[in-house]
């Protein structure tokens, strides 16, 4: 199956380059650590205020780290004009989008796990008890974020004022994902069962399907000439 192979080779290429250069991973890790301090300083030393804001802070952390990580996902293609070469490859371009999307999901997942662990350690919150349902919410939210983020990153890499335009485009579109994930996370952290947040999960799953589909269908127009 050539399509799967092509998507896989894009994923392989990105992970290999990231592994060898370690450019993003180190900086992102440090950024997560910084966020932790930032949130604490912004909310003051009282335990309760932080605890109440926790679901929001968690996802704010994911999104901020995501903005950095996703926004740069096509930067590697600018070096040596590889973007141009990608445009010249024949065949279904959506395989490239899929490969990039999977790579971004892997990167985002790593960041989220690290942030979750840091939250558990520094803010003394128990994320382990609702770990399984929380992982589901995180997974669905990440796919939504990465699906649109990958598409917009491909576009804004070529545009002036890239660093400004990317968040301006991505954040409003991601409002539903943010609302759904924070609401679901809050409910889960309060000990509510998964069934209580089923409607949010359905919304997320539906949104994910829509975003990935649009990404697959329109990526060739982003790449095309």
């Amino acid at each position, binding site marked *: 199956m050539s399509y799967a*192979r092509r998507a896989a*080779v894009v994923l392989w*290429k990105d992970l290999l380059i990231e592994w060898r*250069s370690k450019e993003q991973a180190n900086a992102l890790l440090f950024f997560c650590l910084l966020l932790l301090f930032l949130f604490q300083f912004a909310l003051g030393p009282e335990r309760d205020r932080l605890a109440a804001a926790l679901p929001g802070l968690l996802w704010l952390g994911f999104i901020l780290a995501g903005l950095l990580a996703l926004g740069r996902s096509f930067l590697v293609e600018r*070096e040596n004009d*590889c973007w141009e070469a990608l445009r010249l490859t024949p065949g279904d371009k959506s395989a*490239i989008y899929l490969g990039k999307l999977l790579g971004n999901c892997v990167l985002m997942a790593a960041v989220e796990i690290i942030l979750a662990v840091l939250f558990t350690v520094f803010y003394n919150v128990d994320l382990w008890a609702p770990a399984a349902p929380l992982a589901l919410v995180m997974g669905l939210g990440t796919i939504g974020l990465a699906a649109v983020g990958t598409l917009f990153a491909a576009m804004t890499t070529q545009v002036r004022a890239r660093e400004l335009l990317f968040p301006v485009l991505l954040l409003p579109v991601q409002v539903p994902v943010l609302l759904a994930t924070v609401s679901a996370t809050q409910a889960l952290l309060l000990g509510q069962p998964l069934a209580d947040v089923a409607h949010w999960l359905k919304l997320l799953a539906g949104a994910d399907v829509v975003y990935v589909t649009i990404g697959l269908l329109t990526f060739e127009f982003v790449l095309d*000439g």
Partner: protein
Amino acid sequence: MITARELRKVYGSNCALDSVSLEVAGGECLALLGPNGAGKTTLLRILATLLRPTSGSLRVGDVDALRAPDRVRALIGMVAHGSHVYEDLTARENLRFWETLRSGDTAPARLLGALAQVELDGVADERVRTFSAGMKRRLGLARVLLGEARVLLLDEPFTGLDRRGRKWLNEFLLAFKARGGAAVVATHSFGGGLGVADRVAILGGGRLLLDRPAADLSPDALHRLYESLTDAIEGAP
């Protein structure tokens, strides 16, 4: 192989290309001369289907490039300013990546063979970051070789190459022509590219000022013609 008619490219109020028509047959090499800003790169990018012209028509290998750019891309190999290689991958890994995207046939023997043709087989497993500019350029050519292109578009390929490199590239182009391929080499210097050219075209201010068989012109005559034509452009308002 390449038939371009009345190509125009307009950016806002700036006309980068104005009614450019040319033809390049299989086995022919066209040298595209012109000063910086003349539109050579724009023209090359349109021929490569990287840019859509504002108006005009283009056929490559008997395919309408504007209607079916993807089919045209399968025929084309381009070597431009960027070498189209990833710095953190090895030479072999780069070829493996691009060839998987293009055809899926990444037999190790094929990849090594392409590297051998550009004399990079010795450094097949070195990261590209350690390569010189000339080596990166050669790797880009290896990529194109694997692609079995019928049309080669080269943008200033001789810059940064030493004498040995130039000689090598000339031989490469001769072999390519002998196989029936069509090549367009854009250059602004008179050093490289003219040796293998069958036809010479001069682009100035977005317009085609000259299109003649290379045999018609001695190097001196060409030089003088080039100077006078480009001076006329620069003098004009």
